[in-house]
């Protein structure tokens, strides 16, 4: 019933000829010291597994690797399809593939699912080896810094010293910034898209409403719902709220207006009357089928806690050691990560003399803009990355020259 509206929604992932094609998710479980993987919260995990995908080939110089880091609900499956029956390609298929901005004929593209997720990496729905049962709320809190340190183990495992780029939108941008600060020598460039150096008060507020919806669901059971019915209603509401923040007023009006869904007149009850209601319900239900409510709690918490300047006197000081070149992109209609927050990053970089490119791209799609086909975003990434790669090549030949 909601299908008509859903088809009307921007088609994020239309399969096309320049696709990476059939891909598969792989898993990496690093060998850890006896104390396990120590986390910023003071606790540790006895073992961790990261789900990841790679496309393209690592070149001989090992200087063409691009790490894509994903946002709240993302996963390792960035591009291509897992089976020919898949209805959708990976979540950023518009930018990853042969001839696309992250051109898999030139670059070796890696994407790792984050720690705390439910999409193949270790998270609250994973089995706690000590109890043999899912962690639930006994899973320790993980931070953006923890996620990045885990990714660094994967990058080591893949034999890469220095990444050509770390790129991410939204919470992916948090991780990309974290990479540049934590591992300055390992990152040649950062593409920070629709992101900020810390989560805004307003965004924390939306996260909290989402979490409260989950925790108020009687099926949540303090997080111990595995093997029973899951808190579907709560997680769906959380996702509906999220979706509102990802769109813009203009685009919502354009897509749905005040049009009614499959009816001519009001029902005069509380069934679905408006198309926008139908859209949000569909998004909520679709999300419940693929996402774990506890992971939603943990990951939104990690976003809330993120503040790149924490532990420093200022953001400028936090970014003092950055060696990567930066590309910072914002979108005009993004009110969840507005342009002034992007400029805050840019200014801290400028104050440190870091070569930085900043562009605000006109788009009416709100925060979602970075996931949608956007010629300008594509051109910006393509141009920026090509020059960084060229410069690295030039530096290398300068170093190796007699």
């Amino acid at each position, binding site marked *: 019933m909601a299908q008509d509206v859903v088809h009307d929604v921007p088609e994020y992932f239309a399969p096309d000829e320049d696709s990476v094609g059939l891909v598969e998710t792989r898993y990496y479980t690093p060998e850890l010291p006896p104390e396990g993987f120590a986390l910023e919260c003071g606790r540790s995990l006895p073992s961790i597994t990261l789900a990841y995908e790679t496309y393209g080939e690592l070149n001989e110089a090992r200087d063409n690797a691009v790490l894509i880091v994903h946002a709240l609900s993302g996963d390792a499956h960035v591009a291509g399809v897992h089976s020919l029956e898949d209805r959708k390609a990976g979540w950023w298929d518009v930018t990853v593939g042969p001839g696309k901005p992250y051109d898999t004929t030139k670059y070796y593209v890696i994407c790792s699912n984050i720690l705390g997720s439910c999409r193949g990496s270790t998270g609250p729905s994973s089995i706690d080896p000590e109890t043999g049962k899912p962690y639930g709320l006994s899973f320790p809190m993980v931070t953006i810094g923890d996620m990045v340190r885990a990714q660094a183990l994967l990058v080591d495992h893949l034999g890469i010293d220095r990444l050509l780029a770390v790129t991410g939108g939204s919470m992916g941008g948090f991780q990309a910034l974290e990479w540049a600060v934590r591992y300055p020598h390992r990152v040649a460039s950062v593409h920070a898209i629709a992101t900020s150096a810390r989560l805004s008060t307003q965004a924390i507020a939306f996260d909290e409403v989402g979490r409260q919806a989950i925790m108020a669901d009687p099926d949540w059971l303090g997080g111990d719902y595995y093997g029973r019915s899951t808190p579907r209603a709560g997680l769906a509401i959380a996702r509906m709220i999220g979706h509102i923040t990802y769109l813009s007023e203009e685009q919502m009006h354009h897509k749905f207006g005040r049009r009614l869904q499959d009816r001519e007149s009001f029902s005069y009850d509380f069934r679905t009357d408006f198309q926008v209601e139908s859209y949000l319900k569909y998004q909520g239900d679709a999300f419940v089928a693929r996402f774990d409510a506890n992971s939603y709690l943990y990951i939104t918490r990690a976003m809330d806690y993120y503040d790149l300047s924490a532990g420093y006197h200022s953001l400028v000081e936090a970014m003092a050691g950055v060696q990567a070149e930066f590309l910072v992109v914002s979108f005009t209609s993004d009110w969840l990560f507005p342009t002034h927050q992007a400029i805050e990053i840019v200014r801290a970089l*400028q*104050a440190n*003399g870091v*070569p*930085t490119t900043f*562009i*605000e791209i006109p788009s009416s799609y709100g925060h979602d803009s970075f996931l949608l086909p956007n010629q*300008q975003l594509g*051109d910006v990434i393509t*141009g920026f990355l090509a020059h960084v790669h060229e410069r690295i090549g030039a530096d290398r030949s300068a170093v190796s020259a007699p």
Partner: protein
Amino acid sequence: MNANGRPTKRRLDYELIEALVPNGARVLDLGCGDGRLLAQLAQNKGCQGYGIEINERYVLECIKRGVPVYHGDMMEGMTHYRDQSFDLVILSQTLQQTHRPLEVIQEMLRVGKTAIISFPNFGYWRVRLRLLISGRMPVNDLLPYTWHTTPNVHLCTVTDFRELCDANNLVRTRALFLVPPARQISRLLANWRAGLAIFEIRRGG
């Protein structure tokens, strides 16, 4: 090159500006357009160039040329650079479009050791003649806009600019003068003869 005419008209002074830039300088170009000058300085003089540009179509061109660029207002774009963090700050044919020219110049000399400023000379004899004879606002290669479409809000003459420098303790270390299309002329009667002026200035001691 485009309807706005900017990159095309700027070529006139690029070569002369390039000659003023020392090798390997750290350069900031305000209103850098498509980034051509900075790309040229990087290639020919090994400069590290940065641009500020408000038009996102030009920003895209800068990115394609590999020029780091800030998309936004030039005053806003300069505020967070540290004092004297550039060897040189360039303002090419844009001074007359700024709302507070003196503040722009002072900010240029805060973030940079030297400023290079070029502007169309409103004292140029052709400009004076047009106004005198036809009684109309001048329109020519350097001033390509009609009075009601022009972004130029603070046009000045060579003499005006010199006086501004003198009154604000700004030292003119070099001056170059051009007539269209691209002929360099001496400084003799420059306020009459020059269509375009290029000044290199520093803060006075």
